[in-house]
C-alpha cells in the first residue's frame, strides 16, 4: 500500500530471505487454508456432538427441577424475565428456566428444544410458556439460517421433523464461510462498543452491551442503530443470519393451515409430560404489527385450535406500551421486560395456568361486516367566513379538529380526504398548503377550520360532503384493510351504521363485554337535546355515556354463536359520529374489532389554557384496588397521558385542584400514572391523576366528587412541556412545588456502580415558568446523620453548578444520601429530572 521504497540496510544488517518459490507457496497456501477453515462443514448435526448452545441448555436443565419453562424466540428470551416470573407466579417462588433461543428460531427448534433439552434431561415443568409471534409458530419448512438454528439442537430427527422440516445435508460452503466471518466481525464490533462500558461498571448487573442498548434507547428513543438489529443487541437477529438469509435461495415455508403447524405436537408433548402449554404473543412498538405477517383468518384458526387443544392463549399485540420500554422495534429493554413479565404473570394466573382446572379458552375475534342505513347527507359548516381575498374562505366545523391530527392529516391532505369539498360539482383538491393571492382550487385542514381557495372567485356555492365509501367487509381485526387509506366509519345525521358479528364458535363464558367509543362532530343546527345517538346491541337499547369528545358505552351481552348486530344511529338533526373503537372482552381477554388510527385532539381556542366541561359522575368500578375513600370520580380525558406526563389540570368550582399532577411512578406494565396515586387512595385534600383516557379526581375535602354538587373541569395547559430524562441509578424525578419541602433519596445500593463514591452532585432541573433572576432553593444534603452540603442555590444555576459533597460519601459507606430541597413560595414549580454524581 505504500509507494515508498524499502529502506536500504547496511550489509551487516541483511537477513536471510525466503527463497522465492517458498514465498509464493506460502502466499497461496495461506488463503487456501483460510478458505478451508471457514468453509468446513458444521460440527453439529445427526452425527456430531451437541453445539455450544445445546450443551449450555443441557447444563441449565440439569441444574435442578423447574416449575416453569420458557421457550420461544428472541421475544421470549428478551421480553420474559425468568427471575421476575419466578417471583411473580407464587409464594414461594416457582423456579423458572428459560430455554428461549434468539436469532430467529421457529417452531421446529422449540419442538426440538423441548424434546431434547427439557424432557430428555428429566425436567417435568408444570407450565411451558411459549413466547413467539404467530409467523414463527407457522414456520414448518425453514430457510437456511433458521435451519442452522435447528441443526445446532437436533441429534436425531424424529418422524415429525423428518416429515415436515428436516432437509439433511449442509448449507453451501460459501454461505457457511460468510456466516462465520460476519459472526466474528459482529463479536469484534460488540467488544469495541461495549467493552469499555462493561469494564467500567464491573461485574454484576447488566452486561456492557445491555447497558449500551438501554442507554441508546434512552437517548435516541426507539430508533437507533441497535433498532436495526445491528451488532451489539443481545438476542436480536445478527447481521450474520440476516445476511445469509438474504443470499440463500431457500425460503421459509409457512404452514397453510393451523393443523399443519407444530402447535398440536407441542401441545401433545407438554400434555404427555403432565404440563400445560400457554402461548404468549408479545407486544411490539407502534407501527410494527406482527399480526400482519399472518392472515387474520390464520390467526383466528390458530386461536381456535389452541382452544381445542387446551393451550392457553395470551395475545399481547394490542397491549399499550411505553416506547421507552423497547430496545428496538420488537424487543423490550430490561426495564420493559420486568414490567411486562409481571403483567404476564398476572394474566397467567387469570387464565388458571397453574391450576388444575381447564385453561380459559381464547376469545376468538368474530367476523365482522358493516352496512349503512340511510343516505349520506351534506356536511354543513357552522360558519363560512369569507376574506378580503375573493378566492379564499374558511369553513368552521366544531369538533372536526381531530381530522387535523398529524398522522391522519398527512393521509387526508395528500392521498385521500374523508371531506369532499366541491365548488358546484367540481371537486377541490386537499393540500398541505393554501397560498394566497390566487384561486388554486385547494383546501386544507386547520384544526376545526378548513381553509379553502376556490377555483373561481365568483364560482358556484361550495358544498361539503363526507366520503360515503366504506371499506370492504373486513375479516381482519383492524377497521381498514388498507392502512394507507383508512376507512372512517361515519354515521351521518339521520343514518345508522350496523355492525354484524359472526362467531362460529361460542365464546366460553356466558357473557362478554362490548365497549364502544364514538367521536362526534357538531354540524350547524344540532343541539344537545336532539342530538343523542341511539345504540342497540342484539336488538336491545344500550346506554351511551357522554364524554368530552363523544360517547362511550360498556355493555355486557350474552355469548352466542348466532350472528348479532350492533346498531348506532344519529338523529336527523344530530351529530356526525365516528366509531373509533369497538372491543369485545371476556375473562381478562380482549379482542379489538374496530380501531381507527387517530386520537382526538382538543380544540384549543385560546392560547395558554382552554376549559371544556366533561363531568361524568361515574362511581369506581367494582373490584378496584383503591380503598380508604368513599369514592373517587373519573372523567374522560380528551387524550391519553403521555407516559409519565400530562398537560391536564383540574379545577373544582373554578379553583385549581392541583397545580400539576405529581409523578409517582409504580411498577406496572401500563403507562406510568402521571399523578399522585396516593391522592386518590387516601384522604389528601384533593388532587387529580391522569391515567390513560381518564382523569381521576379527588375532591378537596375528600367528599364524594360525584355527588357533592361542585363543578369539576379539566383544563388543558398547552404551555406545559413534558420531560422524560432518566438516570439509571438515580431516584425517579419529582416536582418541588412552591413552598415545598422535597426529599430526594439516593439509596445506598444505587451507589454500587460508583467506583469511588459521591464527591459531588449535579441536580438537573427544569421548569415551565421562568423563575425570578434571584430565585433560590435551599439544598441540604446529608447521609448517615452527617451533613454534607447546606446552602442556597440559585435556581438559574441548578443545572450548571456542581454541589460538593464534603465529607464525601465513599462507596462502602453505609446509609442513603438524602437531598432535601426547600423551594420558597414565590418560586415556580421545579421538576428535578436527574442527578449527576461526581465519582
Amino acid at each position: 500500500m505504500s509507494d515508498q521504497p524499502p529502506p536500504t540496510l547496511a550489509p551487516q544488517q541483511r537477513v536471510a530471505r525466503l527463497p522465492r518459490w517458498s514465498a509464493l507457496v506460502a502466499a497461496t497456501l495461506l488463503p487456501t487454508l483460510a478458505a478451508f477453515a471457514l468453509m468446513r462443514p458444521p460440527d453439529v448435526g445427526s452425527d456430531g456432538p451437541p453445539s455450544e448452545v445445546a450443551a449450555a441448555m443441557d447444563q441449565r436443565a440439569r441444574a435442578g427441577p423447574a416449575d416453569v419453562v420458557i421457550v420461544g424466540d428472541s421475544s421470549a428470551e428478551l421480553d420474559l424475565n425468568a427471575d421476575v416470573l419466578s417471583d411473580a407466579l407464587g409464594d414461594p417462588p416457582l423456579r423458572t428456566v428459560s430455554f428461549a433461543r434468539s436469532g430467529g428460531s421457529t417452531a421446529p427448534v422449540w419442538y426440538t428444544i423441548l424434546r431434547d433439552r427439557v424432557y430428555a434431561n428429566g425436567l417435568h415443568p408444570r407450565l411451558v410458556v411459549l413466547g413467539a409471534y404467530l409467523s414463527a409458530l407457522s414456520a414448518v419448512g425453514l430457510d437456511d439460517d433458521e435451519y442452522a438454528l435447528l441443526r445446532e439442537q437436533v441429534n436425531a430427527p424424529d418422524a415429525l421433523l423428518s416429515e415436515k422440516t428436516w432437509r439433511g445435508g449442509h448449507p453451501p460452503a460459501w454461505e457457511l464461510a460468510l456466516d462465520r466471518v460476519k459472526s466474528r466481525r459482529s463479536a469484534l464490533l460488540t467488544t469495541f462498543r461495549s467493552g469499555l462500558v462493561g469494564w467500567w461498571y464491573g461485574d454484576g448487573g447488566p452486561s456492557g452491551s445491555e447497558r449500551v442498548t438501554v442507554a441508546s434507547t434512552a437517548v435516541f428513543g426507539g430508533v437507533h442503530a441497535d433498532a436495526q438489529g445491528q451488532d451489539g443487541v443481545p438476542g436480536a437477529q445478527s447481521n450474520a443470519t440476516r445476511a445469509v438469509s438474504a443470499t440463500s435461495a431457500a425460503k421459509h415455508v409457512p404452514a397453510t393451515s393451523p393443523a399443519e403447524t407444530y402447535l398440536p405436537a407441542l401441545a401433545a408433548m407438554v400434555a404427555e409430560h403432565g404440563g400445560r402449554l400457554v402461548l404468549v404473543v408479545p407486544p411490539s412498538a407502534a407501527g410494527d404489527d406482527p399480526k400482519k405477517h399472518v392472515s387474520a383468518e390464520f390467526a383466528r384458526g390458530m386461536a381456535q385450535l389452541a382452544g381445542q387443544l387446551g393451550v392457553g392463549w395470551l395475545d399481547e399485540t394490542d397491549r399499550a406500551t411505553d416506547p421507552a420500554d423497547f430496545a428496538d422495534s420488537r424487543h423490550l429493554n430490561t426495564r420493559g421486560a420486568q414490567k411486562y413479565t409481571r403483567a404476564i404473570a398476572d394474566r397467567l394466573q387469570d387464565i388458571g395456568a397453574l391450576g388444575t382446572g381447564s385453561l380459559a379458552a381464547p376469545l376468538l375475534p368474530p367476523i365482522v361486516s358493516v352496512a349503512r342505513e340511510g343516505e349520506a347527507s351534506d356536511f354543513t359548516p357552522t360558519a363560512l367566513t369569507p376574506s378580503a381575498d375573493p378566492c379564499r374562505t374558511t369553513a368552521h366545523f366544531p369538533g372536526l379538529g381531530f381530522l387535523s391530527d398529524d398522522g391522519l392529516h398527512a393521509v387526508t391532505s395528500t392521498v385521500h380526504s374523508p371531506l369532499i369539498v366541491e365548488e358546484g360539482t367540481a371537486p377541490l383538491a386537499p393540500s398541505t398548503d393554501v397560498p394566497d393571492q390566487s384561486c388554486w382550487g385547494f383546501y386544507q385542514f386547520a384544526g376545526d377550520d378548513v381553509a379553502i381557495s376556490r377555483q373561481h372567485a365568483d364560482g358556484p356555492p361550495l358544498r361539503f360532503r363526507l366520503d360515503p365509501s366504506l371499506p370492504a367487509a373486513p375479516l381482519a381485526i383492524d377497521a381498514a384493510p388498507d392502512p394507507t387509506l383508512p376507512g372512517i366509519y361515519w354515521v351521518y345525521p339521520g343514518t345508522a351504521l350496523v355492525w354484524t358479528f359472526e362467531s362460529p364458535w361460542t365464546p366460553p363464558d356466558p357473557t362478554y363485554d362490548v365497549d364502544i367509543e364514538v367521536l362526534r362532530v357538531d354540524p350547524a343546527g344540532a343541539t344537545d337535546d336532539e342530538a343523542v345517538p341511539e345504540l342497540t346491541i342484539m336488538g336491545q337499547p344500550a346506554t351511551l355515556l357522554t364524554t368530552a369528545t363523544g360517547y362511550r358505552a360498556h355493555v355486557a351481552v350474552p355469548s352466542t354463536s348466532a350472528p348479532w348486530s350492533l346498531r348506532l344511529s344519529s338523529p336527523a338533526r344530530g351529530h356526525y359520529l365516528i366509531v373509533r373503537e369497538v372491543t369485545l372482552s371476556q375473562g381478562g381477554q380482549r379482542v379489538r374489532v374496530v380501531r381507527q388510527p387517530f386520537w382526538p385532539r382538543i380544540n384549543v381556542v385560546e392560547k395558554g389554557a382552554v376549559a371544556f366541561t366533561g363531568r361524568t359522575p361515574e362511581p369506581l368500578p367494582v373490584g378496584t384496588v383503591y380503598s380508604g375513600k368513599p369514592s373517587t370520580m373519573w372523567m374522560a380525558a380528551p387524550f391519553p397521558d403521555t407516559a409519565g406526563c400530562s398537560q391536564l389540570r383540574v379545577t373544582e368550582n373554578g379553583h385549581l385542584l392541583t397545580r400539576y399532577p405529581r409523578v409517582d411512578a409504580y411498577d406496572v406494565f401500563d403507562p406510568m400514572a402521571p399523578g399522585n396515586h396516593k391522592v386518590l387512595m387516601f384522604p389528601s385534600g384533593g388532587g387529580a391523576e391522569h391515567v390513560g383516557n381518564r382523569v381521576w379526581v379527588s375532591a378537596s375535602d375528600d367528599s364524594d366528587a360525584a355527588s357533592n354538587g361542585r363543578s369539576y373541569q379539566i383544563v388543558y395547559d398547552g404551555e406545559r412541556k413534558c420531560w422524560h430524562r432518566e438516570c439509571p441509578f438515580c431516584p425517579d424525578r419529582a416536582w418541588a412545588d412552591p413552598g415545598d419541602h422535597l426529599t430526594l433519596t439516593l439509596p445506598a445500593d444505587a451507589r454500587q456502580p460508583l467506583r469511588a463514591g459521591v464527591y459531588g452532585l449535579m441536580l438537573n432541573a427544569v421548569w415551565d415558568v421562568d423563575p425570578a433572576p434571584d430565585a433560590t432553593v435551599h439544598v441540604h444534603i446529608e447521609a448517615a446523620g452527617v451533613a454534607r452540603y447546606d446552602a442556597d442555590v440559585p435556581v438559574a444555576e441548578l443545572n450548571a453548578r456542581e454541589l460538593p459533597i464534603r465529607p464525601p460519601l465513599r462507596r462502602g459507606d453505609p446509609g442513603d444520601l438524602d437531598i432535601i430541597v426547600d423551594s420558597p413560595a414565590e418560586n415556580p414549580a421545579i421538576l428535578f429530572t436527574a442527578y449527576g454524581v461526581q465519582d
Partner: protein
Amino acid sequence: MSFLQPEFAGFFAVVCAVYWVLPAARWQNVWLLLASWLFYGWVSPVLLVLLLSVTLANYGAARLIDRFPARGGQILGALTAASVANLAVFKYFGWFTAEIAPKFFSPERTAAIDALHVVMPLGLSFYTFHNLSYSIDVRRKAVAVRTDVLDVLLFGSYFPQLVAGPIERAEHIFPQIDKKRSFEATRFLSGLALALWGAFQKVVIADTLAPYVDLIFGADHASWAMIWAGTLGFALQVLADFAGYTAIARGTSRMLGIELVENFNHPYLAATPTEFWQRWHISLSSWLRDYVYFPLCFSRSVQRWLTIPGTGKWRPSANSARALLITMLLSGLWHGSTPKFLLWGLYHFVLITTYITVERRLPKHLRDAGGWRWLTVPLMFCWTLVSMLIWREPTAARIAEHLKLNPFAENADQLIVATSMLGLCAYAAAPLLFALAWERWLGPRVTHRGLQPVAWSVGCTAMALAILASAQAQPSAFVYFQF
C-alpha cells in the same frame, strides 16, 4: 457507476483484459476513453454531454491561447468565468430556489424555476477544476498545448479520478499516456492491494461509523461528550471515506499502468494548520494554492487591486492574508453552498493566520525545534475536530448550540453512549494505525526479508473477508460525491 457496485468489477475486468492486449499507446488511450464514457454515462448518458462540453471547451480554449498568446489572458478569463458559472448554476441551484427565489419572485415563478429540477452532476466540481488546470497550464506554458483532441478528452474524462479526484495536472498525466503501458505483475498486484485497501476503508471503517455518527448528530438532546465523540467518529469516517475512494482510484489506475497523485498523507498527524493542508486533500489544496492563492498574492494586476488606498503600496503580509482568506472561502464554497461552509473556510483561515502570526513571534530556537510534535500533533488534531464539527452540523445555529454545551451536564446514559462511540472510533482507528505502522516500520522490514508475497496474500485475504463481512445490502454513497 460507483467503485463499490458489483457491476464495476465486471466492467473493470473487461477493461483490463482488453487494455493489456492492445498493441499501442493510442489504442490503449482510445479504449480508456471509451471505458471512461461508459463509466460516467452508466446512469445517464445526458451527463456525458456536460462532461464533453467542459472538456472540449478547455481543449478549444487551450488551442486559442496557444494561437493568440496576446489574448491568452482574455480567453482564459472567459473560460474561467464560463466554467465557474456553469459550476455555480448546478451547485447552488437548490440553495437559490430554496432561499433566494422566494424573496424576489412570485410563488408561481419560484415553482416554475423549481420544476426545472436542476441536479448537480456527479463529479462536476472535480472535473471542472481538473480540466481548467490544463488551460491555465497552457497559458503559463507549464505544459505544451495538445493538438490531438483524444489526449485532452482522455485527460478530462479518465474514469478512475473523474468523479471524486484526485484532481490531476496535465504535466503529470500526459507523459504517462504518451507511451504504451506494459503489464507488470508487481505493479498490477500493488494496484489491486491499494484498491482493496481503499474499499476496506470505505466499507469496513466509514460505513460502520456512519449510522452511529448520524444518530448522535440527529439526537435532540446530545451531550457534550456525545457530540465530541461523534465528531471524532465523523473525522475518522470522512477520512476513511475520502481516502478510501482515492485509494481505489489510485489502485485501479495503477492496475492500468497510470499513476495518480497521492491525495492524503496522514492528515491527522499534522502538527500545524499549514501542514494539515499539505496532507489533506492535497490535490485540491495544491490546485487552490497554484491557481488562486499565488496569483492573488503575486499578480501585478491583482496587486493593483489590493493596493492600500492612498499609499500606492501593497503590503505582502496583508495581501497574502487577503489572498488566503479568499482562497479558504473559495475552498468552503467548493465544498458546499450553505453559509456554514463559508464559516468552515473562515475557521481555517483564522487558524492558519493565527498560527503564522504566533509562529513568527516565537524565538528561533523554538521555531526550528522539531521535538514538540508530541504536543503539537494532538493540539492540531483538536483544532481539526472543531472544523469537522462545523462541517458535520447541518446549520450554523446547531454549531453554536453544540459548542455551548456544558461538559458537566451529562447523565449516565449519555456518557455510556459517548463511551460506546469512542469504542467504535477505536475499532475504526485500529486499521488506520496499523496501516501507518506498516508504512513506516513493518512494511519495509517485511519487504526486505522477501516476505512481501506472503504479506500481500495475508493482507488482501484479510481485507477481502473484512469487506465481505461488513458490506451492507445497499452501499452508501461516498461523502465527497455530494461535492
